[in-house]
């Protein structure tokens, strides 16, 4: 029985009075108890389809044809055409949340900033399953626990802005799952999650599916996830279905060129040194905007960025206004230190919520560290970044740029893309107006966006498109160092390949340096020279890329590597491997990596070849490695 059957769905948008078809006659079905993966290029209309199913199309959009038939397993005889229901009528409302759950693509901005997540989840629960509050509370905490919150009780009292990107996504998940809908639409549900949590969450979805026969429409870019989760796959390109079939058929016998390209474009661990990803399109080769004298500094020269002993704690908790309530202290960053050499790409991976964003924001001077030192040294001058003030800080800004994890909220909603991209140029008075316009166009092309989109506002873009705008903006000023916080999480593999190649080219051309934060280990593997692994606010292991992947030492790193889903039907992942509460739960770690009774601080032990691991100072190195 198909729970959802979409046929010949057409959706159009009107922007500046120009109508445009975004979804052009899409048909798909979701059978009961099965998972259907919807994959496709960024901007191809996946989210729009899911919004249409929920009856939540944005104002500018409307269903121009086709039908969306929903058959509730509880009432299998009634078939409802969602497309024909009145927009805010009781009919559609009964479905939303209760029968059809939805996880929005951008978890970071989909939650109300002024309500605690507990409150927001509870609302959804009580709306569809009335029950006493206490019981609801329990259910919610149980659910929070299942999506990977370590301390569900505390978490339910937190506001979204107190959560890291991944935690927010998990809260969204909890909200969508709590009502146990018949159909779950998950739009990129795990982009912000590290692989161990991802495994855990996917496992949870699977469990619920088997428990209740829930059907899942899974929208994702991660072919690994597809391979591990989906029963059927639908491939969409530019609003049209390219291919559709059982997961076996799709992976083993791709027919459509796009699909083939897609499969090729995804980075994997078996890539050769220097091998290039095959993007569908390549970013236009272009001359560097500002030719830089790039005398490659000697390898032993001072690192471009030197970070030492960073500490940052947050005080959160369900606070009463006058300071009552349970306060808790989160050590978001705990004694973090690393170097990034000029022209190098340092990967930073780690559990979601372990403090990666915080570290990068400290380096960017967007967050004040409690203590620590950040030295930026371009070979000419040493800058103590944390001590910069006023005009000096402003002058320093363009040298380090950041790609934000949340592409929605980092773009001014009331500026057109053109203004957004031009802004850094205007601020730093780079060139005249026509020159700036040219540069803006070039940037758009670099990130694979149509220059015709320049006049649109951020909200009218797809998740991946927005992310690319963020990337383009970071590139605009030709910085020395770019901190990429999940730069490609919302991109399908083909566009991802294009972007990654672009970044690599830039690195090669101009000695650009990256701090590359990602949950996608394959991507990190492709990009990074060295990789730092973070857990619980600390760097637990740091090693050259190859070393790390071949000879991981720290149990957390090992768990991480174990949890990577491969886009290979033969290497299916055992979701149960991920420890409950995440692999960062040190109870499962060897004693050498934990605080012992002797109260001695853990230190970074050098294992040689630039390989460090966080362990007890007296631990035996050999033992660790073996």
């Amino acid at each position, binding site marked *: 029985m198909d729970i959802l059957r979409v046929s010949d769905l057409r959706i159009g948008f009107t922007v500046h009075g120009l109508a445009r078809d975004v979804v052009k006659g899409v048909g798909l079905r979701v059978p009961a108890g099965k998972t259907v993966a919807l994959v496709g290029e960024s901007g191809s209309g996946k989210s729009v389809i899911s919004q249409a199913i929920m009856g*939540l199309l944005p*104002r500018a959009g409307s269903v121009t044809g086709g039908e969306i038939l929903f058959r509730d397993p509880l009432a299998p005889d009634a078939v409802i055409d969602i497309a024909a229901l009145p927009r805010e009528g009781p009919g559609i409302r009964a479905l939303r949340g209760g029968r059809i759950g939805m996880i929005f693509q951008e978890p970071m901005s989909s939650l109300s900033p002024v309500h605690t997540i507990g409150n927001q989840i509870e609302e959804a629960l009580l709306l569809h399953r009335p029950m006493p509050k206490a019981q609801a509370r329990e259910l919610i905490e149980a659910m929070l626990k299942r999506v990977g919150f370590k301390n569900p009780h505390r978490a339910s009292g937190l506001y979204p*802005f107190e959560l890291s990107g991944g935690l927010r996504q998990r809260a969204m998940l909890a909200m969508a799952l709590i009502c146990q809908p018949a159909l779950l639409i998950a739009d990129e549900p795990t982009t912000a999650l590290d692989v161990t949590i991802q495994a855990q969450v996917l496992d949870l979805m699977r469990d619920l599916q088997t428990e209740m026969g829930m059907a899942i429409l899974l929208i994702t870019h991660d072919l690994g996830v597809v391979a591990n989760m989906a029963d059927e796959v639908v491939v969409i390109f530019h609003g049209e279905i390219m291919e559709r079939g059982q997961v076996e058929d799709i992976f083993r016998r791709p027919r459509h060129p796009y699909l083939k390209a897609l499969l090729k474009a995804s980075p994997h661990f078996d890539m050769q040194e220097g091998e290039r990803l095959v993007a569908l399109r390549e970013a236009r080769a272009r001359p560097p905007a500002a030719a830089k004298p790039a005398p490659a500094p000697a390898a032993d020269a001072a690192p471009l960025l030197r970070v030492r002993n960073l500490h940052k704690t947050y005080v*959160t908790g369900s606070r009463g206004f006058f300071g009552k309530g349970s306060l808790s202290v989160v050590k978001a960053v705990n004694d973090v230190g690393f170097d990034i050499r000029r022209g190098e790409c340092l990967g930073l991976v780690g559990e979601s919520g372990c403090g990666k964003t915080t570290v990068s924001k400290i380096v960017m001077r967007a967050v004040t560290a409690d203590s620590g030192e950040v030295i930026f040294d371009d070979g000419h001058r040493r800058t103590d970044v944390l001590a910069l003030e006023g005009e000096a800080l402003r002058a320093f800004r363009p040298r380090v740029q950041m790609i934000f994890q949340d592409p929605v909220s980092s773009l001014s909603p009331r500026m057109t893309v053109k203004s957004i991209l031009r802004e850094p140029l205007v601020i730093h008075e780079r060139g005249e107006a026509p020159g700036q316009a040219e540069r803006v166009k070039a940037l758009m092309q670099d990130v694979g966006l149509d220059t015709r989109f320049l006049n649109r506002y951020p909200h009218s873009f797809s998740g991946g498109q927005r992310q690319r705008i963020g990337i383009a903006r970071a590139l605009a000023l030709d910085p020395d160092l770019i901190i990429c916080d999940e730069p490609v999480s919302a991109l399908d593999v083909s566009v991802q390949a294009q972007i990654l190649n672009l970044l690599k080219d830039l690195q090669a051309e101009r000695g650009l340096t990256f701090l590359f934060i990602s949950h996608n280990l394959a991507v990190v593997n492709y990009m990074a020279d060295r990789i730092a692994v973070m857990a619980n606010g600390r760097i637990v292991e740091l090693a050259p890329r190859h070393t790390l992947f071949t000879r991981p030492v720290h149990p957390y790193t090992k768990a991480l590597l174990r949890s990577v889903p491969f886009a290979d039907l033969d290497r299916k992942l055992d979701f149960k491997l991920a420890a409950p509460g995440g692999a960062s739960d040190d109870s499962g770690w060897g004693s050498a990596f934990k605080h012992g009774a002797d109260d001695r601080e853990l230190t970074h032990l050098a294992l040689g070849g630039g390989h460090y691991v966080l362990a007890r100072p007296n631990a035996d190195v050999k033992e660790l490695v073996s």
Partner: protein
Amino acid sequence: MIPTLLVTSALIFTVINLPEGDYFETLAAEMQAQGEKADMSRIEFLKKEYGFDRPPVERYAWWVAGLLHGDMGYSFEYQRPVREIVGDRLLLTMIVSFATILFTWIVAFPIGIYSATHQYSWGDYGLTFLGLIGLAVPHFLLALVFMYFANLWFGLSIGGLVDPQYLNQPISWAKLRSVLEHLWIPVIIIGAGGTAGMIRALRANLLDELQKQYYTTARAKGLPPGKALRKYPLRMSLNFFISDIGDILPSIVSGAEVVAIVLSLQTTGPLLIRALQSQDMYLAGSFLMFLSFLTVIGVLISDIALAILDPRIRLQGAATK
């Protein structure tokens, strides 16, 4: 807070004393306008009696010292301690002001929400139009027209808040009833302008918030639009409204001065204006200080409310920076 109040008190004192002359001169001028003769020696005598022969700084110190002890000074005109005079009118003033505020809210909120959710419907236009008329006609004129016709058609007594027979009675149920019967005119008149303003502001803010993703999320949970709206966008758009609370508190006490004069309401507003015009300076000054005290409190309350409303404000500093 204390420094603020000190600065304010100094400013108020200066402002009140800015016009040349003093109560006694005004008194003399007024008597003369009446054809009466002012006995200058008597006026000199009174001046001395109330310390007007001493430098203003000294009087200021005196006054502030009194205030600190809760002594609001003495009214020349009423020949009674300020506290008693104001106290007498306070209750009535607060009734009027509360009623006005309630009226404003009760009318403005539903209409504002309606206008925002039904943007450009006939209802939106019609209500906007009505509200703006309330804004466009000067208060007194509205008052006069209202009163004239209320009297012509319904035989209501012109102006005033109670039937004359209750004027000097202590507050009683009957009196309260009479107050309620008369309340609607001033309430509508005073409320008209504010209501229109609030409707417009609420509508504008709501229109913005309705676009936010979190509202979509709420709807995706299956919340009925009304409920979703109240819980999410409305709360966010209340920001402007909450930050105005600082104004509400003092205005509850002072009433709408000018309208009150026109309608001859026995509220504190006319008292204040009268005191200012006749330079009855302790009455005016102390009452004004009372108002600024309330402003300060109001601002505090509004800050607290803002912080409750929006955790980002509450947790600022601690959280991100």
